[in-house]
């Protein structure tokens, strides 16, 4: 394991849960999302609990990323609702979540400034900001690039920075939308190590992927999405050993699932 990713002796960089009450469990009720006359999310009910790493698996176009955006509150459902421990999404709840996108969106600033920006937005005390910034740069193995413009980093470094920025604010839940889809195996491993570490420190992970191998490596439970619906949901070992739904069986057997 690379030196910077050996976090055993590091301070608790991924903050523990904070605030007056946990925002989890997350509950989606009857989520429907329609656009352009098409129903892209078709009545999804979902409970997301503390602890486990939830992987949302499915073929391209199944509605996985859309589901993640609906849960995170970036788009509003056509029907249904998302409740955080019984409350609707508001600014305070949004501030206790983070999301990493498939293509990292980095500000036209230095590596360190990208992380500092997120910390400033969340209005953390200055001393705590500096400590967390240093911790995050170490976590993402980006200490030596702290002053470099973020947008000249390699793809893997950019995604590590996006992940470090998302974790810097100490989210209770981290949404990841296929963060390694365009990365090589070495970069993917570094990202997965950071995700593992965040989960170990108590951040709930909800990750979208269509990569079966990645789902096997990271998932505690799998939510299999097909054509805008949850076709199957089960513990990861059970899902991979004996999938129940026909689309999941086909998907795992390598058939082209459309």
């Amino acid at each position, binding site marked *: 394991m690379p030196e910077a990713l050996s976090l055993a002796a590091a301070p608790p960089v991924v903050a523990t849960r904070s605030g007056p009450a946990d925002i989890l469990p997350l509950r989606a009720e009857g989520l429907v999302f329609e656009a352009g006359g098409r129903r892209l999310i078709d009545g999804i009910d979902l409970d997301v609990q503390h602890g486990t790493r939830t992987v949302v698996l499915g073929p391209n176009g199944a509605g996985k990323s859309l589901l993640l*955006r609906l849960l*995170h509150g*970036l788009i509003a459902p056509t029907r249904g609702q998302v409740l955080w421990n019984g409350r609707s999404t508001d*600014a305070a709840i*949004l*501030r206790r*979540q*983070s*999301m990493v*996108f498939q293509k990292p*969106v980095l*500000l*036209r*600033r230095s590596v360190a400034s990208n992380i500092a*920006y*997120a910390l400033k*937005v*969340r209005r953390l005390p200055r001393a705590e900001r500096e400590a967390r910034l240093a911790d995050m740069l170490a976590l993402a193995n980006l200490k030596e690039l702290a002053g470099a*413009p973020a*947008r*000249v*980093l*390699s*793809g893997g470094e*950019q995604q590590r920075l996006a992940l470090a920025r998302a974790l810097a*604010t100490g989210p209770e839940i981290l949404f990841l939308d296929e963060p390694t889809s365009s990365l090589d195996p070495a970069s993917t491993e570094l990202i997965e190590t950071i995700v593992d570490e965040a989960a170990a420190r108590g951040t709930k992970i909800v990750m979208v992927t269509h990569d079966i191998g990645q789902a096997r490596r990271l998932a505690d439970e799998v939510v299999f999405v097909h054509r805008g619906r949850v076709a199957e949901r089960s513990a990861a070992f059970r899902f991979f050993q004996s999938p129940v739904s026909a689309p999941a069986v086909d998907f795992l057997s390598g058939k082209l699932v459309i």
Partner: protein
Amino acid sequence: MQDFGAAFALAFHLIATGNADLVEIVLLSLRVSISAVLIAALIGMPLGALLAVARFPGRGALIVLVNALMGLPPVVVGLLVYLMLSNAGPLGVLQLLYTPTAMIIAQALLVTPIVAALTRQVIDDLNREYDEQLRSLGVGWYDAVGTLLWDARASLATALLAGFGRAVAEVGAVIIVGGNINHVTRVMTTAIALETSKGDLALALALGLILILIAVSVNALVMSLRGERLETARA
């Protein structure tokens, strides 16, 4: 042709010796146009950012209007400002007609739509990229505009330089509201027009050369800023 050569020689002599009239005209031109661009920046940038980020009824029509105003004929702006500032106009009491202030107002009106329209385009493009990420981070509407303006600073500087180029080169508006009064409101473009009509080609040429030099410098600055931006964006 000989006269033309002599005029060129005299023009270079005026520039090289720092002729007092020439310097006064160039400095007034720069003062008027830079002031106008600063005012245009203060109004046009927030307006452009607002049009890019906010959603409200009539936004589309306003964007079309601002874009259309980019092509405002300077003489029309000059005429409108003249009507406002003349003794019979609503602002006649301010006695600003035929002063550098009137010229600044006219050029600011000319440049503001350019700055606003270019800012809107730049911020709109950047907002498409940043929008979800900023909302995910919990950045409020007001802070998002500030972030977008700051991160687009290189492109916005280009917009301001484009506005400056337009202001410093126009003649129609400043000649109407300034009157081309010697030592008071005479700027490079109005002086060139006057000296040419008088047949004093040397001063006109000297001013023309300086104007071209300024235009080239502004373009070089724009290109260097663009180059820097591309360098930064390269991944």
